[in-house]
């Protein structure tokens, strides 16, 4: 019994240390966002501010001539659109593959998707830029190229696709056969039999997609004509690339960028973690 207590104590201590390392960046950015630049530079190790200062937030209220809400709104538009598009494409596509994968081109489509997952996503943007410009999906206030490029296997769609595939693998085919015998047509089978049972996986897929696409920045930087389509994350990269980094500004923008995903994640953590684990187990 005594040995067990010692084991438990060591276990808690090790895990507490791990948790401290994992959570350190969050603590640093939240506390530093309320410090002045001078205070962060003077004593980088201390977390708690000596005097709470709003200056970091005042400095990010307007960035590159636009209000912070402009970039926040763009992040929402891009993340929500990518999520809708990937969920729609991967669930309907996954369903079609599940119903009859022997149809002409179906195998080719799936293989194309799997292969594009392995291409270095960053470098796929070079030819994607050409495709997007040629299709006329590029310009001021034009989000289409960014959204389409980020909804591919190389970028955000891999996990949602595996979630859908894993889900359909668990659906007994007898369900469909029964409906066919009852005389239901293809559309009725989908609407009455599949759609109701698909809701949980659609919700998980949407959440995972939203969380992973909220911080999109490289497709944004490469496929934007100007700052009209920049996201919060793209602005954070921009702040960082200059030589003189304003730390309180960086901390404040990091906080604004991180807060929404952390909140959404904490509210939905069970669904997200179970979903990702389930989608990955047999993929």
């Amino acid at each position: 019994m005594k040995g067990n207590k010692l084991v438990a104590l060591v276990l808690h201590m090790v895990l507490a240390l791990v948790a401290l390392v994992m959570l350190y960046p969050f603590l640093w950015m939240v506390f530093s966002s309320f410090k002045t630049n001078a205070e962060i530079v003077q004593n980088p190790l201390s977390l708690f501010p000596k005097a709470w200062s709003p200056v970091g937030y005042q400095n990010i209220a307007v960035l590159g001539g636009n209000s912070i809400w402009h970039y926040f709104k763009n992040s929402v538009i891009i993340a929500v659109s990518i999520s809708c598009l990937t969920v729609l494409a991967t669930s309907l596509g996954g369903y079609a593959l599940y119903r009859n994968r022997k149809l002409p081109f179906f195998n080719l489509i799936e293989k194309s998707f799997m292969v594009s997952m392995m291409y270095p996503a960053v470098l796929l943007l070079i030819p994607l830029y050409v495709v997007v410009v040629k299709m006329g999906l590029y310009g001021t206030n034009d989000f289409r190229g960014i959204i389409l490029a980020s909804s591919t296997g190389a970028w955000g769609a891999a996990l949602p696709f595996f979630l859908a595939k894993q889900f359909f693998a668990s659906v007994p085919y007898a369900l469909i056969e029964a409906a066919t015998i009852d005389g239901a047509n293809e559309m009725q089978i989908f609407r009455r039999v599949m759609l109701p049972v698909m809701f949980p996986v659609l919700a998980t897929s949407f959440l995972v997609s939203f969380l992973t696409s909220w911080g999109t920045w490289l497709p944004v930087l490469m496929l934007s004509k100007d700052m009209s389509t920049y996201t919060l994350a793209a602005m954070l990269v921009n702040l960082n690339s200059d030589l003189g980094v304003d730390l309180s500004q960086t901390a404040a923008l990091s906080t604004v960028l991180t807060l929404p995903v952390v909140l959404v994640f904490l509210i939905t953590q069970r669904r997200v973690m179970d979903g990702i684990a389930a989608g990955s187990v047999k993929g």
Partner: protein
Amino acid sequence: MKTISLLSRAKNLGSLVGKHWILYLFISLFAVLSIVFGIYPMVRSVQFSFLKSNTVFTSQESIGFNNYLRLLKDPYFWDSFRLTLLFTTISVPLNLISALCLAQMLASKNLSKGAMLFFKLAVFIPFITPDVVGAVVWKQFFNTNGAMNQLLQRLGLAPVGWLTQSGTALGVLVFVELWKHVGLYTIIFLTNYQLIDPSMYEAAHMDGARAWQKYRYITFPALRPALVLNTVYAFIQFMKTYTVSRIITFGGPNYATNFLSYYAYSKYEKMDFGSATAIATMLFIFIILLTLVGMRMGGNENERK
């Protein structure tokens, strides 16, 4: 003869599409994303790699394998290739072993439900945090005037130029990537742990099995599929590493973190499209070959079991 068979095949195809048009409608969006924004740009990229760089957007002048030959003679390319391999060879086992240990600890009966949830969330939360944020914050932490060096000084140790020396800079990137990804691998292992039937351990205990025997004959085989999958995932992930070197080190100091993705991107920024796409193509072929080998090996072992 040939035209007739082609015609009948086309007719056959037409009737199949007609009969299953709803399924084709369902898959259409997925097909557009996979082909128009997936395979097609990849093919274009390979095409670009055979063109003279400054003609990619104009006359598209072919120069055969010259872009590749130039790279094979470029010492920076070989350094970058070795570096990417080194980074991957360190990161894959480091992430998987850390994740296995964390999953084992989180599955322990000594943790209360609340504590288990807290630690699980703490480990996983970096994975859903935007990658720039982690990179930007850790960059400040390891800065010469940053928190890490202040900590060392308080402990009476000499400060270290974390991001200004080759070895330590690479180490910092390994650490930041571990921080970011270990949570994903941990929860995948953890889910597999929890699927193991506890009565198997009890039976083994009755038979007098030692702890390592239980691990060897019960835990390890049960985790095998997750292990294969995580290895493949992690391999693909780390071979493509980009963000940390772009944000934290800009490929430096002295090319010490100039990973292939970063090197190719810097070629692109210098308008050297031919070299950029040639590097991309070689990296892709390398990843796909090793992934196939890995899957084949993992698959065979599974069948044997």
